[in-house]
């Protein structure tokens, strides 16, 4: 129990409760269950892709191309759906994931084999993938009436009042919770991020780990691509521009160390949820749209400062405890 209070995730959770309390005091409708379901729907895609980003950041890398990969896989399946409406929806989903895996594995190969630093690699592929979206669609949109009914409503289909979008994101969370915490490869991912050289000394294959995290992130992003264009019923060349920064922000707010080695899925999901709540709350309390973006930025920085301050305090407690023990 004492440990719980020391966790960054817990700090963030308390911070979220504060915001909810503060906003609902001004706007009681914020507390309606429907509003929370909306927030969950809005942050489901962000949570999923942020988990992919988390794995890469934990190894000490970063993926700037997720926005573009998302757009490219989304555009591909939207066009496929437009020209071959007969393809069943589960095939569409598999194809979207496959495209994402391919794009991610290209990143992975460039980083692990060609040894190009992740930030450079993905800065390059960010442009390449985005450029391919333009090439594919020729600058036009795939809009709602060009998509099949099954394609469009898939993310909204609900069971027990909860949408398939949320179910899928929960599935991703559980799968990767198991992967990162209970499997050998998961442990090795944290090892590589914590200390590359020491990991090499104990026989961990760095190249393999780098390839795996980029490819898996790509796979999640591919799935997110389909969900995104289906949910907004539009695939366009500007889809998800700047989204990579949101995924990185969700990670950082969730306590992921930007230098690698530490970070949890729960933290990242809370981080994404936090961003959704802030966005939603600002709209609810009628903050001018012109101000919203700047205020969002302020709140993000504020959250991170609180997190770091709490961390420092805990470290000092730890040191004092240590000196006492010795």
């Amino acid at each position: 129990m004492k440990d719980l209070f020391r966790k960054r995730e817990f700090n963030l959770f308390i911070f979220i409760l504060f915001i909810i309390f503060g906003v609902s005091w001004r706007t009681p409708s914020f507390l309606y269950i429907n509003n929370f379901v909306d927030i969950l729907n809005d942050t489901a895609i962000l949570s999923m892709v942020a988990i992919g980003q988390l794995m890469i950041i934990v190894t000490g890398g970063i993926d700037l191309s997720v926005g573009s990969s998302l757009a490219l896989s989304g555009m591909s399946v939207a066009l496929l759906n437009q020209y071959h409406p007969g393809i069943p929806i589960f095939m569409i989903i598999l194809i979207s994931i496959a495209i994402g895996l391919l794009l991610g594995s290209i990143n992975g190969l460039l980083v692990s084999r060609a040894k190009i630093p992740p930030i450079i690699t993905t800065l390059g592929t960010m442009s390449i993938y985005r450029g391919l979206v333009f090439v594919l669609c020729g600058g036009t949109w795939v809009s709602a009436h060009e998509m099949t009914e099954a394609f469009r409503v898939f993310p909204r289909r609900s069971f027990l009042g909860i949408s398939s979008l949320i179910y899928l994101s929960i599935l991703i969370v559980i799968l990767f919770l198991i992967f990162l915490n209970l499997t050998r490869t998961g442990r090795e991912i944290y090892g590589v991020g914590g200390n590359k050289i020491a990991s090499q000394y104990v026989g961990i294959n760095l190249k393999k780990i780098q390839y795996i995290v980029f490819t898996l992130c790509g796979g999640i992003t591919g799935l997110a691509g389909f969900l995104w264009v289906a949910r907004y019923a539009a695939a366009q060349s500007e889809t998800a521009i700047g989204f990579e920064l949101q995924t990185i922000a969700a990670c950082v707010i969730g306590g992921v160390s930007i230098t690698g080695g530490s970070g949890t899925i729960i933290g990242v999901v809370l981080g994404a949820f936090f961003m959704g709540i802030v966005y939603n709350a600002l709209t609810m309390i009628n903050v001018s749209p012109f101000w919203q973006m700047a205020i969002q930025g302020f709140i993000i920085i504020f959250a991170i400062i609180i997190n770091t301050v709490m961390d420092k305090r805990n470290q000092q407690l730890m040191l004092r405890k240590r000196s006492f023990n010795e």
Partner: protein
Amino acid sequence: MNNCIIEMKGIKKYFYGVKALDGVDFKVRTGEVHALIGENGAGKSTLVKILTGVYQPTAGTIILNDKPVQFPSPQVSQKAGISAIHQEATMFPDLSVMENIFMGHHIRNKSNGLLSWREMKDKTQILLDKLELDIRPDTKVKNLSVAQRHMVEIAKALSLNAKVVIMDEPTSALTLREVEYLYKIIRKLKSEGKAIIFISHKFEEVFEIADYFTVLRDGKYIGEGTIADITVDKIVQMVIGRSLAQMYPKLEAEQGNIILKVENLSKIGVFKNISFDLHKGEILGFFGLVGAGRSEVMQTIFGIDTKTSGEVFIDGEKVYIANPSDAMNFGLAYLPEDRQIQGAILAMNIRENITLPIIDRTSRHIFLDRNREFEITDEYGKYIEIKASGWEQLVEDLSGGNQQKVVLAKWIATKPRILIMDEPTKGIDIATKATVHNFISELAKKGIAIILISSELPEILGMSNNVIVMHEGVITAKFTREGANSKKIIRAAIGSISK
């Protein structure tokens, strides 16, 4: 004692209750080379850090030119005229000699407040000339040799108008000729009235260059005197304070068959024709100066680096080791020198660290098994006496000695048949050191073959059955325990075996 420039009286320094310094007195006079002598962990570095304002003393006074002073920060100490030349020079490799010298005290143009590079360049040239250093002020520091970097550090001290220059093991990475040159500069500085604090645990050097000495042991002041009135034997006695046998509890271990045989191992530009045999239960010491290539040989055997030519045999069979996984499968383990960089994963807890190399033994298929991990951690953690609040404690929250124990436990848990230890006691306190030494002896007794790389001569002499000495990438001598003595080993290490 009227020309005392600096006097430290009754200095105490405790770290979380551990006494690093316990009432040390230390006086330095102008125009003298004062040797500060003691083993690693005796408190030399701590004393220097107090003098340079890095640490604050728990108790005691510092008197500078007959006035009590305090050095709350390195800047204050520097201003008072105290400069330290560091062991691993703290320099900016991508900046020029001039920029390095004036880092932190740039000269500004008085009229416009901009940096005055011309003036700094001129002053740098004057300093370089004085030190008889044939380099240009705008050469980048990364292109200099170790000796030249030392000289640049000295130039920096002079540019700060230092009256006391502290040299911490200045010769450890120098060739003989460079050492001679350093001595010449030291004598020159001395003749100008500078006081030089010379830290070394090489007695030959102390007798060559120093006028006066102070000995520390286990954080305590042991004695001082003029070099002219003392013998090597007496100083050694002061430094060690007990017999070698007590410090190094070598158990008699029966030596078995040859387990590892290395033949003509070479890596171009790094080491050449390395051949040796290692027996079961043997502790084979590897001695040499920094840069002799000892670690590189071991890293190549362990599959971290690739060899150019040569062969490795284990149990008489030729083996190919392409990466550390292969090496571990053959029963090798490598305890690296730098535990922070190569050893422990600080952001992970003790259990995760210890089980990382044996993750395929502790997990079921692809899934981890925490209970098994805990059992193994408990077994080895208790065996090696890691002090922690629990096995889930993060390694970064442990003390240095305990971090080293985690790394040791991690490699012992792989149940190696051949254990390579690279400076296993570097930078740890004397108590932990004794534990580690005991431990090495015990492992050898169990039949594990051990390669011990160490730069501490007493450790090599006290622990090894056989000693191999390397110099600039080649083996210059091999000794048995009986045939080895410090003089012969040092000669081989500095490459003057033929003399």
